[in-house]
């Protein structure tokens, strides 16, 4: 468990924040660029000393400004993955990997070199110099290098930001797998909601150096009031579900959740696996009558529980279909349908609108 309380004034930003990060899960620190995310990681790692602060990791105090405690970064045992991988250019991959291994604190479970090399598929790269690696490979080496120090927490600062989208798709599964393979606590900084939904269990929403909300990804994403911060375009509910089956003939994956079964256009995943899926508000439409004979595969009946109509030509409507989901419709439809809180509606979700990219495992 990581406990953080910070106050620091930068020339262009003042940070004043308190939060806790649970053990053995991925917590996303989400906010727009310039909201102070990277600065917070720099302070947690010890690379920046804040004006005021208290940081505790697994009951070890690493920073306590009041009592003048400041553990220097190299003694904190915190892993840090930077946006640019920062591999040492004069060392080959294997030497980069081994760089931090000497400083391992034996009290913590040892992460084995062989296992890291296998998991991150680095076997063929060991003798190469960083200049001969692709962006995605560099980042995998950087992750492995940090893991090998057996960190108490792994800080990741937009590790996918400087990688092109194809490489990103290649490296995401590795980050998803870290949790299963190494049981490590991760604080993941990102400004991409898609990445957060895919990777994180919990999220902390920050804006201008302050915490706006904290909770599970599902909770935060179902809050209409937070849309200005989570981003209107990709806004939409996130629901937890379990893989039920895969229809080979139509290549449809069925996910069971509290509101029923959701069919999505994604490749096979192991049955029984817990997943999170993002249903964008713009992909959900509403009907007052039970729709028949149409192309929509996913239709759920529910009652309207919240309406956000103060943003121009669009209206966001939260419908309880067992779990809250969110629909965005035009103001014209909203008024013609006479929708209000309590109205029973049918929410329709196109199966093709949800693919593997919207599913976090």
């Amino acid at each position, binding site marked *: 468990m990581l406990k953080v309380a910070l106050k620091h004034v930068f020339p262009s930003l003042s940070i004043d924040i308190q939060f806790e990060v649970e053990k053995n899960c991925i917590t996303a620190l989400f906010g727009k660029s310039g909201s102070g995310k990277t600065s917070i990681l720099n302070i947690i790692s010890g690379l920046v000393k804040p004006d005021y602060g208290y940081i505790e990791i697994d009951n070890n105090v690493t920073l306590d400004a009041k009592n003048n405690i400041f553990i220097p*970064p190299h003694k904190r045992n915190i892993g840090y993955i930077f946006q640019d991988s*920062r591999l040492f250019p*004069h060392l080959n991959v294997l030497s980069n990997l081994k*760089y931090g291994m000497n400083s391992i604190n034996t009290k913590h479970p040892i992460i084995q070199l062989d296992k890291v090399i296998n998991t991150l598929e680095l076997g063929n790269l060991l003798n190469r110099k960083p200049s001969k690696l692709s962006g995605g490979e560099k980042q995998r080496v950087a992750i492995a290098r*940090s893991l090998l120090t057996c960190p108490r927490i792994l800080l990741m600062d937009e590790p996918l930001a400087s990688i092109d989208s194809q490489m990103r798709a290649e490296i995401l599964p590795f980050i998803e797998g870290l949790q299963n393979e190494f049981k490590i606590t991760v604080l993941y900084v990102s400004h991409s909601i898609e990445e957060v939904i895919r990777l994180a269990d919990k999220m902390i929403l920050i804006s201008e150096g302050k915490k706006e909300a904290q909770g599970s990804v599902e909770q935060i994403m179902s809050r209409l009031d937070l849309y200005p911060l989570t981003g209107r375009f990709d806004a939409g509910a996130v629901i937890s579900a379990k893989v039920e089956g895969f229809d080979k003939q139509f290549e449809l994956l069925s996910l069971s959740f509290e509101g029923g079964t959701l069919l999505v256009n994604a490749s096979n995943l192991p049955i029984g696996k817990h997943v999170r899926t993002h249903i964008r508000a713009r992909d959900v439409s509403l009907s007052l009558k039970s729709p028949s004979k149409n192309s929509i595969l996913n239709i759920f009946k529910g009652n309207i529980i919240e309406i956000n109509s103060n943003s121009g030509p669009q209206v966001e409507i939260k419908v309880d279909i067992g779990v809250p989901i969110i629909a965005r419709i035009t103001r014209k439809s909203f008024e013609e349908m006479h929708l209000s809180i309590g109205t029973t509606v049918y929410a329709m979700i196109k199966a093709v609108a949800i693919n593997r990219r919207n599913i976090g495992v």
Partner: protein
Amino acid sequence: MLSLTNLEIEAIELSIKVAFYSVLFTLPLGLLTAWILARKKFYGYTLFNGIVHLPLVLPPVVVGFFLLTLLGRNGPIGNILKNTFDITLVFSWQGAAIASAVMSFPLMVRAIKISIEGIDLKLEYAARTLGASSIKIFYSITLPLIFPGIISGVLLSFARSLGEFGATITFVSNIPGETNTLPLSIYSFIQTPEGEANALRLVILSIIIAMAALITSEYLTSKAKKSLEG
């Protein structure tokens, strides 16, 4: 032309010895100074930077004069050296090495400083988060990355030492067998009637030594760069 006279061998040996010790002396000090100038900002930085670079812009004779005043037998430091350690620098090859060292110091510092400034500090931050102490970072990251800079610093100051004339002749004079390095020997020959032929032989020798040093350094630098880039 092929067989060298004793005098010529003596001059070459002396020149290389003086240049070698001069580099040996300036390297650690130059590394430290370069690191301070590249990384630290402090009160009096400009003044310190100015003093380090002074030998580059002052007439060598002025430097020689200062050395004579400070390290000469009656100078404040020279006096202590003479009385406590029985060391006399004037009229000795050690004095010539010191004169060369002072003159070539700014070249060493500049070459290394540029390469330290070229290192991305972010790499050192990354090393910190991997548990490396400042000392480990210095020898495992900083030093290997500035190695090409160190080589070029060593070459520049070696070459500068080989060619040092003004400060040397002012400080330690031109003593046969003790301080008559290549440039000083060339000067002596030119001063003697009919000495031009001998001077020319030494000039050619100087060119050969300088070229050899240059080629060696180019080779080492490109090898070091290659090992950095893989």
